[in-house]
């Protein structure tokens, strides 16, 4: 177990340090510059993809909730709390 951990540590160092070095050195060669437009807009669109996916899940859940648990839904039944009359939540 300990040896395995050590192996992973060595591997991680072998991978991480060159990656970080490479990343920090990016754009240092004359004539080859990073395009900030590409970097920033790509980041923006990646985040919007995730945001809209999560948004679709959240709003989909809420729309379904509103549709399924409305009072007039055929399957609507009184909640267990309605019988005791205690849904004020003094818990």
């Amino acid at each position: 177990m300990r040896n395995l951990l050590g192996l992973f540590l060595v591997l991680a160092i072998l991978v991480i340090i060159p990656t970080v070095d490479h990343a920090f050195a990016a754009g240092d060669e004359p004539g080859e510059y990073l395009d900030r437009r590409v970097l920033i807009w790509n980041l923006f669109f990646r985040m919007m993809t995730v945001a809209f996916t999560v948004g679709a899940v959240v709003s989909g859940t809420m729309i379904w909730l509103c549709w399924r648990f409305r009072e007039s839904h055929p399957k609507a039944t009184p909640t267990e709390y309605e019988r005791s009359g205690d849904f004020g939540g003094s818990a």
Partner: protein
Amino acid sequence: MVLELQKPRPVWQIMFSTHHTDVGLLYLIMSIAFLFMGGALALLIRAELFFPGAQMIADSMTFNRIFTVHGTTLIFLFLLPSASAVGNYFVPIMVRYKDMAYPKLNAIAFWMIPPGGALIWLGFADFTWYATPPYSIISAPGPAADMWIFGLKILGISSVLGAINFIVTILKCKHPDMSIGQVPLLAWSFLSSSLIVLVAIPTFAAALLMLLTDRLGVTGFFNPAMGGDPIAYAHLFWFTFHPEVYVLVIPAIGMMYEIIPRFSRKPIFSKSSGIFAFVLLAIVSFSSWAHHMYATGMSFTEKTVFMIGTLAAVPASGMHVFNFVATMWNGRIKFLTPMMWSIGGIALFFSAGAGGVANAAMPLDFTTHDTYWVVGHFHLFVMGTIAFGTIGFIYYMFPYVTGRMYNENMGKIHFILSFIGTILVFFTQHVLGLYGMPRRIFDYPAIPEWVAMNQIATVGAMIIGVSMIIFLINLIHSSAKGKPADIHDPFGLGGKYYYPFESKNPHH
């Protein structure tokens, strides 16, 4: 509980009363008045931006004054007092005390607001609600700027007094039989937001004084010509006003916690996680202020720290959304006006939060900072979440306050129009910001995309304007002529409430 308006009383008896429901009523009426005044300015701004060039408003100076007063009014004279109105009505009843802890202080806190509001409206300053130095020191014309500073000073003191009152009422005056865990979530929300006010406001109060002495030329705290630093003001300002966002949001969430379980006919899913999330939000609200200042030349490390601080607020906000969804699950939901406003508010709360996460990501600031994206983003919060929660709660407390029912159909039309309008205005403004339109501009070049989106936004704003007129008619007409409400169960939900409506707090 209340029935203030059913029993006719002379106006002066309400005005000079220190009873918590009377003060709450005053807060409510005044905040609704300022909602319409600030909203009218918003419509003026939108009308002016419908076409490029000057149409409605004569010059950019007037335009700048209008958006400054619009922002100041709606934040300090509508959102804060309307939350105080709800707190005044409900907090003493929820902790089962006869009144606020300090009734006279309560009345004083209210009566400081009209002079503060008068100073802001009579001055009509032009340096944005942020009072940006060194512009506010060397360029902003007086006496408008000085009146704004004094007005804000008074409003700040008023909210600190109100916060002290809420904290003492909840912690010290709750019924001895009640443990702090039994205090309802709405009262918890006032406790958390009041604690934020106590910590946050003094910083801005100090900054305002420094701004004033800078304007007088005595000092140079924020004036680079005298060795000062405008960025210092930015830090002081946002140290107060980023937490202030949570001061506004937390009570609105508390109001939804009151409405959603009731109309779902279930108790709240997890009260302890609601309390936990409130307290956590109150704490992390202080870790994110400088995300407003990424573009002022902050170092990479500073930006990283404040980005992490900003993202830290997301799990707590998400817990509230989870709580609402889980409460509605398996419920039997009655879609009356207050419930519709609350659900709409949660939906927009998510959109605003997602936009906020994008803002917090440092490199995206280059595209969004100080554009209409930011305008759309924070309006989704203040209008889409906070005002929606508050307006829903105004409908909810209407029968308890007046003893009469509001007109349900008008309430629903109000909601639907507002919801459509809000989406049209503020979602469009996000996209407009991505096209690069700066905020706070009086005129813009006739770039086709900019023109089209400004026009969509203006149409949306007019829809909101129409819906608000319906709201006003509903409020006035129903409070005088509405059909009497069954005070024990005005919404026909069944079940018992934990605050005793019958045993209203006697006037003393």
